[in-house]
């Protein structure tokens, strides 16, 4: 691929991504948002993040991600539910996955 084509493609991806990001804040500023709609939109963001967690935990592209990653995230999830500090949650999740891989469990 030529340099020009690469720059152009990356720039289009950047501009398109910015358009997605910018549309929400701009539209919100123009309309009156009811408390009910406000709640629904916050719920939508949580649902999207939950779906990201779910798919990232279990899948690598379209295939099963293995055991180590979901196990690490599950450990993190349980600790977070028990209100363990965030730093411990994240390090425990990464540590569990890394340790399992070190033991030969993918």
């Amino acid at each position: 691929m030529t340099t020009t084509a690469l720059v152009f493609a990356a720039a289009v991806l950047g501009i398109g991504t910015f358009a997605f990001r910018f549309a929400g804040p701009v539209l919100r500023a123009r309309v009156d948002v009811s408390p009910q709609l406000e709640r629904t939109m916050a719920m939508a963001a949580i649902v999207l993040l939950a779906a990201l967690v779910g798919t990232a935990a279990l899948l690598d592209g379209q295939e099963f991600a293995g055991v180590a990653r979901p196990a690490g995230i599950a450990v993190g999830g349980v600790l977070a539910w028990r209100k363990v500090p965030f730093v411990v949650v994240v390090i425990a999740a990464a540590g569990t996955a890394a340790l399992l891989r070190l033991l030969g469990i993918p």
Partner: protein
Amino acid sequence: MRSTWRTLDRDLARDIALVCLADTIVGVSFGAIAVSLGLPFWLPMFLSVVVFAGAAQFMFIGIVAAGGNPIAAVVAGLLVNARHLPFGFAIGDVLGTGWLRRVVGSHLMIDESVAFALSQDEPRRRQAAYWVCGVALFGCWNLGVLAGAFGGTVVTNTDAFGLDAAFPAVLLALILPAMRDPATRRAAVAGVVIALATATFLPAGLPVLLALVGLLVGLRGLRTRQEVAA
């Protein structure tokens, strides 16, 4: 910005710093992988500044390095990034007013900054969490990519450190408090089921968007309860 820093307490700053550290390491790996795939060293840096979204960037360089069509790489990246549209509706008010804040704040909209903002109850803390996370991650991510592109193949397998488990755990920890609300919990569970069921045959990005159908489950329960209450 000084008031932003004062609003941010030490615990939150530490949490964001940890995510920055993890993000830097992934940035180093992104830069190194892009260069090792034979792509020019400026490409990962350019992408990180103008796109600033890890998953889409990895997807883009993967398709381009494999000799794929650049249009396909752009479409795949845009599909993965379409979730920022509903994110913007949800947290658009934390950016603040004025065009400069809206433009810069929009560019800093990533999963982590959105999740940190949503994890705060009070509007001022929401705003502080969003901006500090966004600015810090933009800096760390780009410095990491720069180091990786020039430093070469020091860190390419971030899975060995379990970082692939760390990022979902970060988001999970930040959204769990919201899950204490039953309607949100029902919607999220339904959304995850929909995303997982469709992820095996739909292109990346779409399953996560389809998860929004799960909102119907959460909202229907809400309406039923309101009717009962009425």
